[in-house]
């Protein structure tokens, strides 16, 4: 077989290989997304999806009832989501770094400890929400019981009901659940670092913190950025934890929760789709920004 013929055959197989995957993705992702974007330009209602009129950008803005741009509930959801994403991802990165550094040290029973740390990540989100909902119960919860017993608080706290605490509770559970994943990614990066640098640094008596700051951090930086992007994506889409823990309450409502409420509870498919579309656009823009700032190359055309 000549190189030219080989290339030709490989390209033909490539098309064949890509076809089923592409077809499925268009079917389950492309088409539904297109539907949602289309619905966002209509006044469709859930009670009769076949009967709607094109209304242009009215769901986003109109002089009559305002549209999304004039909806306080929406802006609160946007604020909640951004705050949640920023706080939880920062905490997860910091704690993930600490856990990863600790686990990269060789010590007895390290395998067991690593496995134990991964447990929160393996627990289904809905189960985490139920478990923590039970532990944070204001009357029968073990968290209040322990804090009261230790004298940290003198009256039971309403973790999921108090407006000031509820969002922090969500952050805490999310940090608990996803720090292991973060630690995992960082740990993998740490393990690929050349060991001789550290040996040399140790022999020269360089303080560990300096080593970390000037050697480790720059080396794992690309991996860290990728991990943060993945987490930020998840955090911005946050839905099931909040929904299972506090329902539609405005204090903790995320963009996804808002969109679902409009779409399903209020049957307003047009308006809910508009919110979903904006959520999609916000996520797309943020990723663009992060990718540019982090200068991470996602595709490698040269190869």
């Amino acid at each position, binding site marked *: 077989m000549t190189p030219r013929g080989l290339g030709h055959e490989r390209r033909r197989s490539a098309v064949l290989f890509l076809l089923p995957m592409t077809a499925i993705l268009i079917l389950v992702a492309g088409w539904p997304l297109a539907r949602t974007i289309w619905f966002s330009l209509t006044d469709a209602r859930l009670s009769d999806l076949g009967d709607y009129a094109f209304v242009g950008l009215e769901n986003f803005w109109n002089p009559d009832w305002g549209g999304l741009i004039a909806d306080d509930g929406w802006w609160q959801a946007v604020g909640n989501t951004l705050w949640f994403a920023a706080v939880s991802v920062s905490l997860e990165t910091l704690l993930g770094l600490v856990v990863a550094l600790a686990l990269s040290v060789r010590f007895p029973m390290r395998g067991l400890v690593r496995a134990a740390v991964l447990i929160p990540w*393996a627990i289904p989100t809905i189960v985490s929400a139920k478990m923590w909902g039970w532990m944070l119960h204001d009357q029968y919860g073990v968290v209040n019981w322990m804090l009261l017993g230790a004298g940290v608080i003198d009256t039971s706290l309403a973790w999921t009901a108090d407006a000031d605490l509820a969002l922090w509770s969500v952050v805490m559970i999310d940090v608990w659940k996803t720090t292991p994943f973060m630690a995992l990614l960082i740990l993998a990066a740490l393990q690929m670092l050349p060991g001789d640098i550290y040996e040399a640094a140790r022999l020269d008596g360089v303080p560990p913190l300096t080593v970390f700051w000037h050697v480790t951090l720059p080396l794992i930086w690309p991996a860290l950025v990728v991990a943060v992007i993945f987490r930020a994506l998840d955090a911005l889409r946050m839905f099931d934890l909040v929904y299972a823990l506090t329902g539609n309450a405005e204090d903790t409502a995320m963009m996804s929760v808002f969109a679902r409420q409009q779409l399903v509870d209020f049957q307003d498919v047009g308006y809910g789709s508009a919110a979903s579309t904006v959520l999609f656009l916000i996520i797309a823009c943020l990723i663009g920004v992060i990718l540019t700032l982090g200068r991470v190359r996602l595709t490698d055309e040269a190869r």
Partner: protein
Amino acid sequence: MGEIGHWSPGAKAGFAALITVIVVAAVFPFYYAIASSFRTGSDLFEPSLALAFDPANYRSVFAEQPFGRNILNSVIVATAVVGLSLGLGLTAAYALARVAFRGRGLMLMCILAVSMFPQLAVLSGMFELIRWLGLYNQLPGLILANMMLTLPFTVWVLTTFMREMPRELEDAAYVDGATPLQVIVHVFLPLMMPAMAATGLLAFIVAWNEFLFALTFTLSNEQRTVPVAIALITGASQFELPWGNVMAASVIVTVPLVLLVLVFQRRIVAGLAAGAVKG
């Protein structure tokens, strides 16, 4: 970094304390769920860290809903999703990583874009699709819907791994007259096993834990997967909040995952994370 042997006793003690805090924080909620799942009646409402052994909650979880069937459903859905994602993902990854063609970068970007779709943004369209295919309240519908969540990252991670494979292996096989599919199966598959295991496990966890699609696209108790079944548990007897049952059900669905993670722990760390990091 490094060997604990070189450390001073103070540093060792501090390090031990840090590790203890990490482990307790990670494990305590699960421990408490297990402890709660073995307690019943008013005992449940008196917080305590002690472990009791009253299996009543476990019995009623299975007695009051087709929980065995729910577990089976979850296993079917998660296994099928993993199988399809890996199969389609491996061949697609070959095409994306080893064959140069126009628009490859764009395609990878599109796939990455799909992996960041909010589930909410596709929910209504997906519901229409599932109804139109006649798959409402049927497991195949769920399997199809879950592909949106697992296929993009499977393709993505496998592509990054596939890129790292040495060119010579492939060329030698082609010289021997192998077809691309044979190359994938006989040359790449064995080398990709660690990556396949890690990605497969991740896909399994995603499909096993998925809630929103399962809630929306199934209707009867017999077709539900475990996360939905847990969310809809209504109560052991009418006299108590069903926390005992919920905790028992939670422990049941979590144990297989914890075991999987324990078994594959080394592989996950080495395999999947490396792929994601290199991406």
